[in-house]
């Protein structure tokens, strides 16, 4: 242990011996700090490290800015403090107060001082450095907590409950919080917006940009119906305010659940995979990341997600994950997992298992991992039963958007189909629907409600049947939801009346056949827990 106090006493007593009483009574001139920055490659540094001991400034002939600065400050002697070969400080002495030259004793004393002070100073420096590092770590941890909080607060708490579809999402933040996000937007016409994005950078800056982007997207999507114009608007608003060298990749897909039609635009985000009967394909729509450049436009593409097909959206945290050998997980591995799943069920957990096996136990996750899966349930049959709601292929202009006219629920009790029928009739009374078509609709509603109560809900009164009535001005839709699901509603074959009359078949089995023949279109969606029967009637202003 170095006793600096003892050294100081030795200096002081020596001074006192050399000065007269009056001078000695004067306080010792307090040390001054010389604020001097020395470049690491300054020759003086090398000199000090190579020549321990007191150095006389006047005796040096080095081409050194530091030396010039020391002389400028009237420094006569320098005592380098060298610890483990590294210059960690200097004791700089000006002229002696007595104006005498420094003696050999003085120099020896200073050398002793340096030899003891250097390790002590080093220890103090290390302690201070550790304190600073601890404070920095704490600050960074706090920042990460804030970033995580921002991000997790803004991610959806619930997945959309979409009859006929299964939506799953997985978000696994990297320790540094990488700026991934996803979002679901709900529109009155029943459409669902699905957003996945990734902000460059990490931590709080990324989280703040993510929060801003999410807000801008929600606001733009509320007013604008096309994904391309939504991204265009968000880019225009984000670009002036985003910090330099930051940008956001973002995919925005708008799903019409009734038809499976998905329109989407992509601001430089990883391409989603669609798994259909013909295999796995990447869905492309070109566009620059948000916030990178002003005045960007975005391509918009449409696809139909047919029953049984799935769409996987992902962030680069998966494909760019590295294993211990430095290999990337890569798109090929991800695509292979998508291809291996005929239906999307279990795809996300399969991808995550594959990723975990690839990166190994010691993986320090480099970036956020985000997956959003949209799976359309199988229809009752492989083909739409009577005409798709879209009524046409993807090239035709989209029909006007559906508006909800009424929704109501009924307990599953025998006879309540009459209530459903009468309520629907009252709701549609003002619509241009002929008397004959109204009667057909009533029968279809009653039959579908009866099926929902009987087959879907097993006539359990506490499980309601929900009826929605919608119109898009061209057509009328009645959607009848039950709590059944699981079992697929079989497509009705034309009942064989002769066989029934001959006693070879039961007399029953007319419900679905009647419905099919009463309405212009019938769609049936089934998933694990619901059936939705959708009855479509075309309206005509020419009809009475």
């Amino acid at each position, binding site marked *: 242990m170095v006793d600096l106090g003892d050294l100081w006493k030795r200096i002081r007593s020596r001074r006192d011996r050399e000065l007269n009483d009056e001078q000695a009574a004067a306080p010792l001139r307090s040390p001054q700090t010389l604020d001097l920055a020395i470049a690491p490659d300054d020759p003086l540094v090398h000199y000090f490290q190579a020549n321990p001991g007191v150095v006389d400034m006047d005796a040096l002939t080095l081409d050194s800015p530091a030396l010039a600065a020391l002389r400028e400050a009237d420094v006569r002697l320098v005592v380098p403090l060298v610890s483990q070969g590294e210059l960690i400080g200097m004791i700089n002495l000006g002229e002696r107060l007595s104006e005498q030259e420094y003696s050999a004793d003085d120099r020896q004393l200073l050398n002793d001082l340096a030899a003891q002070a250097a390790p002590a100073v080093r220890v103090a420096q290390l302690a201070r450095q550790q304190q600073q590092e601890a404070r920095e770590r704490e600050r960074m941890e706090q920042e990460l907590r804030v970033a995580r909080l921002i991000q997790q607060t803004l991610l959806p708490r619930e997945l959309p409950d979409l009859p006929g579809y299964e939506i799953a999402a997985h978000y696994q933040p990297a320790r540094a919080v990488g700026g991934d996000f996803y979002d679901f937007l709900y529109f009155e016409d029943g459409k669902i917006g699905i957003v996945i994005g990734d902000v460059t950078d990490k931590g709080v800056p990324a989280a703040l940009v993510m929060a801003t982007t999410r807000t801008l997207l929600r606001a733009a999507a509320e007013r604008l119906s096309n994904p391309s114009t939504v991204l265009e608007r968000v880019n225009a608003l984000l670009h002036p305010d985003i910090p330099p060298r930051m940008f956001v990749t973002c995919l925005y897909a708008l799903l019409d659940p009734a038809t499976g039609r998905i329109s989407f635009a992509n601001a430089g985000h990883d391409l989603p995979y669609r798994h259909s009967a013909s295999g796995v394909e990447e869905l492309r729509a070109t566009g620059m990341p948000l916030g990178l450049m002003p005045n960007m436009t975005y391509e918009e593409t449409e696809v139909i997600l047919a029953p049984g097909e799935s769409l996987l959206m992902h962030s680069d945290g998966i494909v760019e994950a590295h294993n211990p050998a430095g290999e990337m997980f890569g798109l090929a591995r991800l695509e292979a997992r998508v291809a291996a799943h005929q239906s999307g069920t279990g795809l996300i957990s399969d991808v995550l298992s594959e990723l975990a096996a690839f990166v190994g136990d010691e993986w320090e996750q480099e970036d956020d991992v985000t997956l959003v899966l949209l799976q359309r349930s199988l229809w009752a049959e492989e083909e739409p039963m009577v005409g798709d709601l879209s009524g046409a292929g993807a090239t035709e202009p989209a029909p006007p958007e559906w508006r909800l006219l009424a929704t109501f629920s009924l307990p599953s009790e025998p*006879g309540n189909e009459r209530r459903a029928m009468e309520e629907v009739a009252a709701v549609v009374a003002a619509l241009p629907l002929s008397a004959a078509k109204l009667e057909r609709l009533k029968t279809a509603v009653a039959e579908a409600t*009866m099926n929902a109560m009987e087959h879907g809900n097993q006539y359990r009164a506490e499980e309601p049947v929900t009826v929605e009535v919608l119109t898009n001005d061209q057509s009328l839709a009645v959607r009848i939801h039950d709590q059944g699901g699981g079992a697929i509603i079989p497509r009705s074959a034309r009942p064989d*009346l002769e066989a029934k009359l001959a006693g070879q078949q039961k007399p029953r089995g007319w419900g679905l056949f009647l419905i099919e023949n009463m309405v212009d279109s019938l769609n049936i969606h089934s998933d694990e827990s619901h059936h939705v029967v959708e009855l479509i009637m075309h309206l005509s202003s020419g009809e009475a």
Partner: protein
Amino acid sequence: MQRLQQDFSASVRYPDAGRPVAIIDLQGEVNSFAESALNEAFGVAEAQEPEVIMLNFSAVDYINSTGIALIVALLARARRANRRLLSYGLDDHYEEIFRITRLADFIGVHPDEESALQAIA
């Protein structure tokens, strides 16, 4: 709004038509609740061994798929006993349903009692 069994009734009469005919006047809703009353009335009608049984739907305002199944069962029963089954008084909508289900191929569909009786004269 709860609909109860009382919403259906059926009664049998035997018009003077020159041949054995039974008319079952149906009233209300032909659905699952109608099953016992309908079968009972049919049994009453059959007791007189009519050649023709007519179903009068004039006072029926609702037939559902279960009701269709009940009518199919009655038709099968009538055919086994070599009896003709006729109907009248169906409104346009249910007449269409009789055509769609092909019940109209086996059950004569007439607008009213008079025309139905003329059809068997």
